[in-house]
């Protein structure tokens, strides 16, 4: 198991972003669905060791990231793409990927080859030495994916990775996900339900900080059958059905 979350909670002042999430994930592609504000990004940030949990237990790659040394170990094998990624306009794509490869403690001898492989894998090979300020939004996103995968991570966390990618690039990206899912845990947070259906082996749905569904895409689709829920595609209908059910339950939010 690469990810073990037990009753994980995260509060910001009086707001509870993540509430009592319990989850386990091994190798494979794991989809995290949910509307805006559901807590997906906070959950991903906790798994990326960017913010600590308020309560609950978090184990990543068999370690407790609460203390410095294990946290550093985890970060070496971590790949993270935040939802909004700033960039340094004067850097080239190669500079950018190389910079974060070095910050992930990759041995410098291995860095150039890994950077080249990552850049080619996201399809930016003809723009490797172009300055980031000359790139479109989709290309910047792909550069962000490249830095996430450059260190061949065991835990790959991607927050809205397909924003700005055209359909062809999304298909290529799903291939990349599947390839990494063979040996690593890939967690993709997205609001694009089709992305999830095509690449993920497991799906979790979040609403108001809680997990309201956890299963396979097929099971999510099954929830939508005959429910009359909104949606053009079966998976979307399942998504809407589960959300509707979750919202209709008046639960006391801690």
């Amino acid at each position, binding site marked *: 198991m690469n990810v073990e979350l037990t009753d994980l909670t995260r509060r910001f002042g009086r707001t509870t972003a993540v509430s009592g999430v319990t989850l386990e994930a091994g190798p494979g592609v794991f989809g995290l669905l949910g509307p805006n504000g559901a807590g997906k990004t906070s959950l991903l940030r906790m798994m990326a060791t960017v913010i600590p949990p308020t309560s609950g237990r978090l184990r990543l790659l068999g370690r407790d990231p609460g203390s410095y040394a294990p946290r550093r170990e985890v970060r070496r094998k971590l790949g993270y793409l935040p939802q909004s990624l700033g960039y340094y306009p004067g850097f080239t794509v190669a500079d950018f990927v190389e910079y974060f490869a070095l910050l992930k403690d990759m041995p410098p001898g291995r860095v150039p080859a890994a950077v080249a492989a990552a850049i080619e894998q996201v399809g930016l*090979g*003809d*723009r*490797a*030495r172009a300055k980031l300020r000359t790139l479109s939004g989709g290309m910047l996103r792909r550069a962000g994916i490249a830095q996430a995968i450059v260190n061949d991570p065991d835990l790959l966390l991607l927050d809205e990775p397909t924003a700005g990618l055209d359909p062809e690039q999304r298909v290529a990206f799903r291939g990349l996900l599947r390839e990494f899912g063979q040996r690593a845990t890939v967690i993709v947070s997205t609001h694009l339900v089709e992305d999830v259906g095509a690449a993920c082996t497991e799906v979790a749905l979040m609403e108001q900080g809680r997990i309201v569904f956890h299963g396979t895409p097929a099971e999510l689709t099954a929830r939508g059958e005959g429910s009359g829920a909104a949606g053009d595609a079966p998976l979307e209908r399942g998504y809407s059905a589960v959300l509707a059910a979750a919202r209709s339950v008046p639960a006391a939010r801690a």
Partner: protein
Amino acid sequence: MDDDELIAAVAGGDDAALRELFSRHAPWLAARLRAMLPAAEVEDALQETFLAVWQGASGYRWARPGGAAGGWLWGIARRQAALLLRRRGPAAVVLPAVFAPGGQQAGDPAEAVLARADLDQAVAALGPAGGPEREVWRLLYLEDRPVAEVAQLLGVPAGTVKSRAHRARRLLRGALGGGPAAGGGKR
């Protein structure tokens, strides 16, 4: 962009042009190299070739229209292959070893068979291994050594080397019938 423009761009530091050059020319360069070297050595030679292109593109003089780029690239590739052969051992063993069963190249099996037959026949025409023309050809063309060095290695004057090379070329031309496989550098 045509090849000349690509090479000019590479000379100006455009790595995307190098990438395009690679995708256009690496396949046929690899096929030609494969006729001389085993697969692993082909990869190394090809890598060295394009790194040399990256560094030396400013030295390219496009004197004649069309086809010059291919010749220039092949020239670099041949040199790199020769360097490799010199570093890794005698050339004589490599050629026959390359045409192992199942070593068919994709893309043009007929060409491969032809090339192999041509070369086998041509090499045979140079005389027995260790003979004067064969040795000169091996050292001068296969291992790309300068005339002076070959003369020193064989213990003969430079003039003798040159006349033996001339004879070897004549024999090869005759054996190959002056066809497409004669010499390199044509695309």
